[in-house]
């Protein structure tokens, strides 16, 4: 138990030692104990903002999965759509989506919408490209069965391509779930009145650095929990 906790405990001890040494002022780096205190004392506040961010992330994941999955399946069904959409897909991957955050806020207001949109942008690509690659890599001899039964493209997709592509979709989802919280938090940084990203900026402005670190820790924890949950779920689905 101690051996397993050591990699976590050691940096914490170093951190505490650093703050006790007096070399770093607390408004730059608060002591871990002070952060822990903030986590407990402000738990109600932190919890409210955590739920806001979490709901943005979950919505973004859901919509991103639907959009990415839909585009990948349409690509597989229609070669023409594939030709038309490929440049846009590649361009959308090369685009640093973070620069879109202010524009999204300008268009969609200060509510959850631009945060969800930001998350969707980050989730969309790994899901779409993962599923598309999976669908396209179905072995030719398996597709022989579609030819022999004169299956419609839709039925071939459902019975032959999709089952083959599920592990590829799973890989895409594992990446997507790591990116998703970043999208929501950046959306909140640009303009929000709720959420952990907003709380980080607020705490910074009010010199409550220990609260800023508490929010940061919660974002990391939320990401880890989302990752583990997704991994469990995908394993159960053999993806």
């Amino acid at each position: 138990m101690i051996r397993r906790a050591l990699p976590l405990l050691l940096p914490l001890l170093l951190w505490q030692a650093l703050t006790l040494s007096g070399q770093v002022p607390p408004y730059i780096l608060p002591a871990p104990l002070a952060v822990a205190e903030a986590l407990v004392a402000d738990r109600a506040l932190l919890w409210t903002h955590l739920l806001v961010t979490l709901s943005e992330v979950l919505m973004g994941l859901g919509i991103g999965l639907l959009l990415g999955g839909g585009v990948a399946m349409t690509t597989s069904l229609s070669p023409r759509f594939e030709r038309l959409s490929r440049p846009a897909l590649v361009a959308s991957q090369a685009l640093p989506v973070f620069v879109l955050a202010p524009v999204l806020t300008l268009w969609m207001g200060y509510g959850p919408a631009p945060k969800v949109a930001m998350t969707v942008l980050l989730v969309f690509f790994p899901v779409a490209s993962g599923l598309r690659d999976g669908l396209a890599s179905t072995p030719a001899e398996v597709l022989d069965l579609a030819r022999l039964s004169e299956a419609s493209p839709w039925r071939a997709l459902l019975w032959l391509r999709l089952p083959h592509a599920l592990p590829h979709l799973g890989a895409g989802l594992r990446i997507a779930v790591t990116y998703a919280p970043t999208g929501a938090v950046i959306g909140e940084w640009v303009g929000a009145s709720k959420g952990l990203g907003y709380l980080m900026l607020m705490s910074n402005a009010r010199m409550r650095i220990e609260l800023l670190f508490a929010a940061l820790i919660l974002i990391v924890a939320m990401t880890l929990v989302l990752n583990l949950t997704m991994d469990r779920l995908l394993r159960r689905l053999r993806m």
Partner: protein
Amino acid sequence: MSPHGLGGTVRLGGRVLLRDAALRLAPGWTCLLGPSGAGKSTLLRLLAGLEVSARLEGWREVPERIGWMAQRDLLQERLSLSANVQLMARLRGQAPDPARAAELLASVGLAGRDEARPAELSGGERQRVALARALFDEAPLVLLDEPFSALDPARRAAMQTLAHTALRGRQVLMVTHDPAEALRLGDRIYLLRDQRLEPLPPLAPPHPRPMGDTELALAAAALLARLSEAA
């Protein structure tokens, strides 16, 4: 039943695989032997209407439905055995018929395993499911592309007997590189070599010959010697 088959010239790039020849099928087993690369599988795929890089200049006569067994069993790992047996029908958009799938699974020795997954089966059992899948359609023409070649000799013999019984009365074309297999099962045997389809004398019925059959063993040895000479 109209005579199914194909004829003409088959070209693969600049190469001629078959020059002005015809492969006519009839009820029972037709076996196609030949050295690797002669184009046995290409011919089978042309007949099945599957994608090939070769071109057929000639005629092709096939029924609407064709049964298919490849070297790999092509079972879908995420589907139950029952769903795998019904796969071709589902791809065609037909309603599911689990009762018939269960019947066919039982007929290949997998009674009660309807809900099992392919991963739970041995290689031989997997090919049995592939056979049941080919049987489900009741296709008058069944094409086999070395379907038993990956099995150990004992299982291979058992599978040959099972397939022969199950496919009785249909037109079967099997590509194989094993002379003993062709002699054991074939009512007609062709050797695809040097752009020609050379008919070889089959053993007298009944097929399949028992594995311990001396005549089969001698004929197989003689045929193997003949094939090796040419190679």
